[in-house]
Structures are given as C-alpha cells and as structure tokens.
C-alpha cells in the first residue's frame, strides 16, 4: 500500500490529465497515523473548509460542535472541534477524515474518502466518496487553523 511519493504524484498528474472517472479515488500513502501528502497535490482553502464544516450536507456539524458562534444547532455526538489544530497535524487530520475507522473500527465517524466495502449505498451515492479530495483538503486546511 505504501507507494513512493513520486509514483503518487505521477498518478495524480495522470488523473488530472485524462480527467479520470469521477468514482475513482486519488491514491494516497499512509505514513504512521497520517497522510502527509495533500490528496490534490495542493493546499486546501481554509475559508471554503469552514463553510463545508458548517454545511449540514457534509454532515460534520450534525455530530460535532466547534467555535462557530453563528451556527445554532451543533451536534454533541463527537468531540468539539475547538483546538483540533493543536491536537493534530494537517497530515493526521487528513487520515482522520479519509478513514477514521482505521483508528477505531467501532467509530461512528464515517470514512469520508472511501467508496468500497459499504452496504446498500443509496443509488445516488454508490461508488462515490462522501467528500471529494478537494473538499477533504479544504476541511483539513480549516481544521488545522483551529488553535486554542
């Protein structure tokens, strides 16, 4: 599973070049408890990431709360996101978004960048990850800014 960064870069380049099938995930390399490389090869946009975290469609805010005074309804099923950037590096946050079940098989946090091994996925979602690589990067960039 561990591939050389060069190989990954090549794959990303290839997928950009021929606009790979939407259902295909960008391959990534896990190092320790992290994914060091950006899934898109570029840093995400923290402002877009903040909007994504607050959008109910991405589901973050349904379970998590955080330093979002303008958002009235936040979940309390999962840890408060305040200080997430202190607790985790961007690389660690990336893997936790991509596949949190890797750390705890029983977690209720969905694997946001995964499209296999799932049961009865709805017609409109089949074969797709919950978030795109770019959305993951935006959210990672935002969470990394959450420092106490």
């Amino acid at each position, binding site marked *: 599973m561990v591939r050389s960064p060069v190989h990954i870069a090549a794959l990303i380049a290839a997928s950009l070049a021929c606009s790979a099938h939407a259902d295909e995930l960008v391959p990534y390399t896990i190092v320790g408890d992290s994914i060091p490389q950006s899934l898109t090869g570029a840093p995400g946009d923290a402002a877009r990431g903040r*909007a994504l975290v*607050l*959008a*109910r*469609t991405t589901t973050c805010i349904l379970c998590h709360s955080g330093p979002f005074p303008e958002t*009235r*309804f936040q979940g309390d099923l999962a840890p408060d996101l305040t200080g997430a950037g202190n607790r985790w590096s961007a690389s660690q946050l990336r893997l936790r978004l991509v596949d949190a079940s890797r750390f705890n098989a029983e977690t209720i946090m969905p694997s946001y960048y995964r499209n296999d091994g799932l049961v009865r996925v*709805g017609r409109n979602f089949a074969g797709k990850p919950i978030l795109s690589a770019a959305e993951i990067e935006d959210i990672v960039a935002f969470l990394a800014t959450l420092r106490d």
Partner: protein
Amino acid sequence: MPTTRRQFLSLAGGVTVAGTIPIVTLRPLEATPAMLTTAIRNVVGEAPIRTGRVKLDIPPLVENGNTVPMTVSVASPMTAADYVKSIHVFNEKNPQPNIGNFYLNPASGRAQVSTRIRLADTQKVVAIARLSDDTFWQVMADIVVTLAACTEEMN
C-alpha cells in the same frame, strides 16, 4: 445562509440528511423586511402602532417549523365599549408575510386565538391587534426553528 436554510416545506420531506437530491427547487423564497412592512401597512394603514397589550405565546425553540403552536391574546375587557376588533399575525421570512387575520367582537368574551403555523426558518413573528377605538398594538417574538437532522427523499 442558503446552505443551512430549509426550503419552505419541501415536498414529502425533501432532501436527505445529505441534502442530496433537492426534490424541490431552491428559490429565493424568503419574504423581505419590506414585504413584512407592506403587509402590515396594508392592514394598519398610516396609523401608529404601539407596543404592548398583545401577548404572543409561541415556543422560543420550535421542534419542527412545519407545525408551530401559537396563541395570541390581548388585554381587553371585551365590552361593547372597549373590545378587540381583530388580530393580525405576520412573519418575517416565509415566502409570504401574512399568517392569519382573526376577527372578534364583544361577544367573544376573551380576546385570545390559538392556531398552528409554519415557519420556514428562524425568524420574527409579529402580532398586531386592532382595538375598537381603532388603535393598533403589537408584540414581536423571535422564534428559533430547529432544522430536522434527517428528512426523507421523496419516493
């Protein structure tokens, strides 16, 4: 905040938790404060509106905006000489600012009306009473509407 706004009554539920397939097209359905003012002026005309005498009972935190219990009452002796002629209820952000007009008379005995309303979003509700001396009295309330975490797709 278009991303968090619920549609005004999505058809048979509307979108999933994911906001996947909007069953109902998203449109700028929100009434503007100007529309609210116009709706009020249509009833009140140029008369001044004073604050007081009217009471609006509505849960400050609504569990579902599709059915919100509401009671309006007015402090009035309800005698032939001094009674409430009508009660008018308005909202700020539904597609249309009017909610209901209720016409009373001295034989009502008590100036109080209850109904259930729809609130498309967290917003202000205004209740105005017209007394028999043609003065207008109002009360305003801010209502927080909880958005359903999971709604269903239309089948």
